[in-house]
């Protein structure tokens, strides 16, 4: 109990849909009229659930509704959720950019946020001047920045450009400099929103390393929002899954990620079900526990379940071929090659891919049915499968940002 550094109680945030127009003024007046008569906000009672796919039936929406959670000291709390689930709104409330509609957030430490770094940069000022300005905006004193100035410049790798106006910087350099400033902040609670999505591979590695230092080495409390499941699994000690403005999971990281991936399926099917044909009645992607998933993680064990019909009751084999977004063939898995042919009238066949080898993105697959080694049915683009970043090598690192194939390998050495 006494370890709790941040406590969110029943926080909600209401937004108005549509544009600000004359209607807003009348609502403002109505609100004011209620207020002077000592009544509550007449619009606080209305508002629909934050689900962007349904049509708006009311003018107000709850971006967050009755969120409760505690953060303990030294914890790295990951926050995941679909786009529009309320993650960024929550971070905005925590970093005091905007106030909650109801509820309260209590904290025992200073909160500093790293929301899309580099926004405080003034293009006309030099790198050096901006380091001071940005540091001050983030709440550092001049002395703190002075003490860490060399470290910051080294970390950013922009030493040569430190006396050049920031407007001449490349966008990558700007981000490096901004992250460098922010990474050297020393608040008790650090809020980070997807900063790792920028910069090149080398810098990303550096940034992740720094984050690990911050959270593990220095025992700082970190709130981390990301879509990168690999980074989440590597850095976080606890996970919060948001859905439609509410907390739908809180607890263990791997369970949370699993929950998120499965849950995604229910609301939004990320792969198209294969057309029901004579030979195949359904295709499902499953995880190692045989639960249906909507997205696949790089490196995850994937099982593809195919329900087949085999009127001839013999010599049926299946093949699934995977293609990238540009329809380039990637790989295929044929059942007769690994000596599986189906001889019963009806059944389920399971394709097991031990480690999903593809980098994040959308892929589609073709399904083919062979009878006595001749193709009798070929469904092109039978379905799509979305891949999210995962931890292929168990190290939290994936090489490069390019679309890639990952294979399971190992390096070893003999010391001479």
């Amino acid at each position, binding site marked *: 109990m006494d370890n709790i550094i941040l406590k969110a109680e029943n926080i909600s945030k209401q*937004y108005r849909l549509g544009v*600000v127009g004359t209607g*807003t*003024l009348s609502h*403002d007046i109505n609100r004011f009229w209620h207020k002077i008569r000592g009544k509550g906000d007449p619009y606080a009672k209305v508002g629909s659930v934050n689900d962007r796919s349904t049509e708006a039936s009311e003018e107000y929406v709850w971006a967050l509704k009755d969120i409760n959670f505690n953060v303990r000291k030294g914890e790295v709390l990951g926050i995941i959720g679909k786009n529009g689930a309320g993650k960024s709104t929550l971070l*905005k*409330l*925590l*970093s*005091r*950019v*905007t*106030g*909650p*509609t*109801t*509820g*309260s*957030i*209590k*904290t*025992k*430490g*200073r*909160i*500093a*946020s790293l*929301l*899309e770094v580099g*926004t*405080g940069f*003034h293009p*006309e*000022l030099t790198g050096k*001047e901006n380091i*001071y*300005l940005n540091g*001050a*905006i*983030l*709440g*550092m*004193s*001049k002395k703190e920045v002075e003490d860490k100035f060399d470290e910051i410049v080294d970390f950013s790798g922009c030493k040569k450009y430190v006396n050049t*106006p920031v407007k001449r910087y490349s966008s990558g350099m700007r981000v490096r400099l901004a992250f460098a400033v922010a990474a050297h902040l020393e608040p008790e609670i650090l809020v980070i929103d997807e900063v790792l999505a920028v910069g090149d591979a080398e810098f990303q590695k550096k940034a992740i390393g720094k984050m690990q230092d911050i959270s593990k080495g220095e025992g700082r409390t970190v709130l981390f929002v990301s879509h990168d499941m690999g980074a989440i699994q590597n850095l976080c000690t606890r996970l919060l899954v948001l859905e439609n403005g509410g907390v739908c999971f809180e607890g263990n990281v791997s369970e949370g990620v699993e929950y998120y991936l499965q849950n995604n399926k229910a609301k939004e099917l990320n792969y198209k079900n294969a057309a029901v044909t004579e030979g195949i009645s359904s295709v499902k992607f499953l995880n190692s526990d045989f639960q249906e998933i909507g997205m696949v993680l790089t490196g995850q064990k994937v099982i593809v379940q195919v329900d087949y019909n085999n009127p001839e009751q013999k010599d049926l084999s299946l093949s699934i071929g995977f293609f990238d977004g540009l329809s380039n063939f990637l790989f295929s898995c044929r059942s007769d090659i690994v000596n599986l042919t189906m001889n019963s009238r009806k059944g389920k066949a399971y394709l097991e891919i031990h480690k999903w080898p593809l980098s994040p993105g959308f892929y589609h697959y073709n399904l083919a049915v062979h009878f006595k080694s001749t193709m009798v049915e070929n469904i092109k683009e039978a379905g799509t499968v979305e891949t999210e970043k995962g931890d292929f090598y168990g190290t939290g690192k994936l090489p490069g940002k390019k679309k890639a194939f990952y294979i399971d390998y190992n390096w070893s050495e003999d010391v001479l």
Partner: protein
Amino acid sequence: MNNKISSDWLYEITPNKKLIDLNLKEIWRYRDLLILFVKRDIVTVYKQTILGPLWFFIQPLFTSVIFTLVFNNVGGIATGGVPNFLFNLAGITAWNYFKSCLTGTSNIFRGNASIFGKVYFPRAVMPLSITISNLMKFGIQLIIFIGFYVYYLFIGKEVAPNQNLVLFPVYVLMMALMGLGFGMTISAFTTKYRDLTVLVTFAVSLLMYVSAVPFPLSKAKEKLPELEWVFEYNPITQIIEGFRYMTIDYGTFTWGGFTYALVFSVVIFLIGLIVFNRTEKNFIDTV
């Protein structure tokens, strides 16, 4: 009971807000930011210009020259025994400070939405830094004014300040308060309703004429007797007239007018502060 519970928390983020919540302690903690903002405001204005800081001098000088040519030479407005140019320079120096405080603060929320939308720092740092950097610009313009003053004395013109000069700090304060008050109010309303941004740009330039900047108040009363009240009840006129009265001993001064302007600027400042305070927490949702 509530106090007891919250005492071990550093701070609490809640939706209810106090009427005026200045949080001076926090502003003090961010004093380095304040200094850097002031520096930024001054340094960046004339970066990548050849004349650099000279532009701070050029603008009021040219305006005064034009005013002298148009109002005094063409329009034939007499300014007592005081040199026309000096009369205009006095008015413009005072007016510019008020104007830059007003226009500077009136765009705070919209102009800084990108920063305000990402990080928290006491929002009051912004208007404060604008007032201070403008005070420095005002200081620079005051130096020019004093320079010409000395020049006119040197060539034998009869100009002298009067005993009201002791009120100088009060006048500067009034200009700042009034500029801030109007500016903060406008800035708060423009987050939701953009109408005011359109209004401000031309209203300020019109306000200058209604505030008797390029001509003495007595002239305005004499030529436009039916509009006398406009000039009389405009608190800015009182400030401009008062500023000229104490520096070049030309104009009208009444204690009534002075008190009126003082009360007015304090009231408008308080209104601005309240509106600003109410807006700063949630403006990012409506901007």
